[in-house]
């Protein structure tokens, strides 16, 4: 086929629908939608191959605004629906849009099972640490003692760390980005798109109505550099306004925050390796934000793509059995076992 017959390349506009976007003005979801709409045309995948699947919640309105195949399912079940789609059509590019309540509370079971099976689905978890669509109850990522509509004296639940949960579920691609860090978010989405197995991205997202400022400790101008550690494969773990702090391994295997200088050089720090086969290193990274003085990492925690995709394992098993037994014959099947003839 000559290049002349190729359809014109897709643009961001090709992925927009005629539906009015109905998120609250100022919602972080707009930024995520914009990033996805600008990344999809760059992937070189025909539009009809995309399926966006969602559950319930503000984030789950996402499919209506994407001019692809879209399926707005029921609360928490998008990963299971996506698994069924991939089992039948492994070549589709299936993205799940979900939230902290949808993916980690009502649908927690499906999220972990999708990841451990390594279904070739991309999961975008919009984490605003609140229930927005039901107007302001605490979520499974809300901080302890949070005062919300359903917890006037403070919530008594300890939160999930979505990245730790995904790594604990043996996810092969785990990343974190932020709604307002547009270029970082786009790069992260592109990296996820390249991953064949399950890809899980926690996107820190602001709900300016019910949980405004959920992430300001990371997104405000100064905080951004002081408290955020941007993970880059092959580079040392350095952070801080003056890029003078880093993460170093201790002899006991744990990590510590050190200040560069006084004989401590960048090469003494942990050099980030996102491609490790085992998940323990990524898990250690995912937990540092809970410790005093440690930064919050964003970027790729883990990107290891050697595990076969679930849908390929399914299809291979079918192929192997057919190769061994031949394609099934219905008459033979019905007459399996002991039969007798009545004349």
């Amino acid at each position, binding site marked *: 086929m000559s290049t002349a017959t190729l359809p014109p390349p897709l643009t961001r506009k090709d992925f927009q629908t005629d539906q009015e976007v109905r998120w609250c003005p100022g919602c972080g979801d707009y930024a995520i939608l914009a990033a996805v709409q600008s990344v999809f045309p760059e992937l070189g995948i025909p539009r009809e191959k995309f399926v966006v699947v969602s559950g319930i919640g503000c984030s789950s309105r996402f499919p209506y605004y994407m001019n692809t195949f879209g399926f707005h*399912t029921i609360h928490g079940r998008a990963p299971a629906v996506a698994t069924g*789609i991939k089992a*039948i*059509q492994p070549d589709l590019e299936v993205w799940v849009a979900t939230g902290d309540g949808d993916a980690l509370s009502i649908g927690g079971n499906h999220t972990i099972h999708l990841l451990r099976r390594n279904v070739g689905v991309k999961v975008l978890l919009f984490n605003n640490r609140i229930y927005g669509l039901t107007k302001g109850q605490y979520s499974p990522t809300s901080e302890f003692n949070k005062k919300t509509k359903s917890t006037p004296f403070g919530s008594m639940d300890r939160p999930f760390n979505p990245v730790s949960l995904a790594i604990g579920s043996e996810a092969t691609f785990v990343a974190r980005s932020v709604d307002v860090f547009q270029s970082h978010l786009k790069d992260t989405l592109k990296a996820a798109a390249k991953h064949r197995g399950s890809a899980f991205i926690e996107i820190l997202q602001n709900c300016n109505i019910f949980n405004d400022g959920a992430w300001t400790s990371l997104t405000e101008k100064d905080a951004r550099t002081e408290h955020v550690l941007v993970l880059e494969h092959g580079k040392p773990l350095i952070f801080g306004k003056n890029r003078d702090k880093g993460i170093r391994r201790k002899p006991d295997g744990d990590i510590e925050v050190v200040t560069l200088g006084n004989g401590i050089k960048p090469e003494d720090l942990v050099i980030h390796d996102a491609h490790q086969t085992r998940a323990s290193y990524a898990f250690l990274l995912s937990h540092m934000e809970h410790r005093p003085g440690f930064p919050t990492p964003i970027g790729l925690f883990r990107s290891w793509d050697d595990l076969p995709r679930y849908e390929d394992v399914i299809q291979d098993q079918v192929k192997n*059995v057919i190769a061994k037994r031949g394609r*099934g014959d*219905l008459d033979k*099947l*019905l007459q399996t076992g002991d039969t*007798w003839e009545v004349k």
Partner: protein
Amino acid sequence: MSTLVESPQTKSKREVIDRAVIRFAGDSGDGMQVTGSQFTNTVALYGNDIATFPDYPAEIRAPAGTIPGVSGFQLHFSSNEVYTPGDAVDALIAMNPAALKVNLAELKANGILIVNSDSFQETDLRKAQMETNPLEDHSLDKYRLFPVELERLTKLALEEVKIDAKAKSRCKNFFALGMCYWLYNRSMEPTVRWIEEKFHNKPLLVEANKLALKAGYSYCEATEAFQISYEIPPAHLSPGIYRSISGNQALALGFVAAAEKAGLTLFQGSYPITPASDILHELSHYKDFGVITFQAEDEIAAITSAIGAAYAGALAITTTSGPGMALKTEAMGLAVAVEIPLVICDIQRGGPSTGLPTKTEQADLLQALFGRNSEAPIPVLAASTPADCFWTAVEASRIAIKYMVPVIVLSDGYLANGAEPWRIPKASEIPAIPVHFATDPQGFLPYKRDPKTLARPWAIPGTPGLEHRIGGIEKQDVVGNISYEPLNHEKMVRTRAAKVEAIAQDIPPVAVDGDPEGELLVVSWGSTAGSIAAAVKAQRARGTKMGHVHLRHLNPLPGNMGDVLKRYKKVLVPELNMGQLLWVLRAKYLVDAQGLNKIQGRPFRQAELEERFAEILGKRERVQ
């Protein structure tokens, strides 16, 4: 009717009879289900008509020798038509005192009673809560009692086999099976073949089981213990190739056949649950048909993965039992709203909650009809016999695809595990199921309906130009965008209902078995078909003008149902529940129907049906 002939091999007599009911009972570790299945297979291969009733506890191994641990398998085989596994038992094989205690009440007076006398020691009796030894206290005098030292004799027969004592003891069920083959003049050949296949890489077990089987047979021959043996000639079934089949096997094969006939991949999303798991086991073998079986993380993922698969263009099914149905309800509503083909199988069991996992009950008709939020009508079909499960699966798939709807199939524990002879259809006899995937972007709209079936297009992802969004939120008619508009909602609710209601035009009208009008109409559905048909036949033979309607389609009901109900003075609806179809018929047709309701985890006995007929007809005579 019986004829006595001299048996050529031995001095014992051989009697030709037309039917027998045999029950194997023992501990759940005694292999009674295998023993019963083997006997079933052998008599079916010989050409008898059969019906079976496996009855086993929910516990894998309740404490050995106790009453809760008793597992039974009943078989009715005949040279005539068989409708039920039989009310009363002609021959009972009891492997221990508990099995004897649980099953003795159903043994006919003068019935054959074979007991394993080695298991009637003091401790065994205590476990069965028996104060005296029934083998010695004359309490069994009204039966033909044959105490056999099954344990000792089996071990003796296997003396030379190099397996441990425990493994030898486990072969005693085949010793008993060998005895039964002698008693009913059946060949050991099919079971020998089965043993060789089953243990093909364990030659010592092949040897041990074959020896035990043959020793049991020879024991009868040598000792002439029974003095009489029985011969039941083959039944006159309609010509064809037959096999014995259980309801769960038949459902599995039905879906494979439907997928082949539709040219679609079969996808099954399922979570293990009694008594439905065997469908998953069965289908997981058929990868050579491209079947995809997905053992999901829970019941909800089982159905939602199936919804995803259907959306992507598969014939998708999910299989479960009552508690699992309850978990699937929200997802069923989604399937109704997005209008995709899906078959949901509920293999009913006693409820509520966990209820009676291994016992049968027509528990979930109302759940199937109404168990969803809001107005979410779903076509409901029920299978009537194990073999009928095959055709019910094919029919459910046809409706789901043609009308773009989820469809519920009801079976139950009794059909799932029970077996009967099945005339195997040729693949060419099974009608094709046409499938039309939308491909033309010109004028495509996701909710633009076929004017005749009201089905919306099946537009699967990957089709260029058909990108569109669907979901559980109410959709604008034709266009499919989100719509909260009041009149649009009413229109969509009514349209979905009308689509399901219109299926009544596409199913056979009610066919009455018996008199087209008269004193009494008996209406039934599901697994009670056999016992009710037999009871109606017996009652009509006594001169009552009555008819029997057995429904396969429970939603929508056949178009002439109301007319048929009006032709009889009285209507009786026997059900293994509190009266669920009864409730529907009374509500829908304003008919003063009455019920016969049994909620004991067991099927109807023919006699209790006939007693109720007599009562309702005002003839309170005792029924034999």
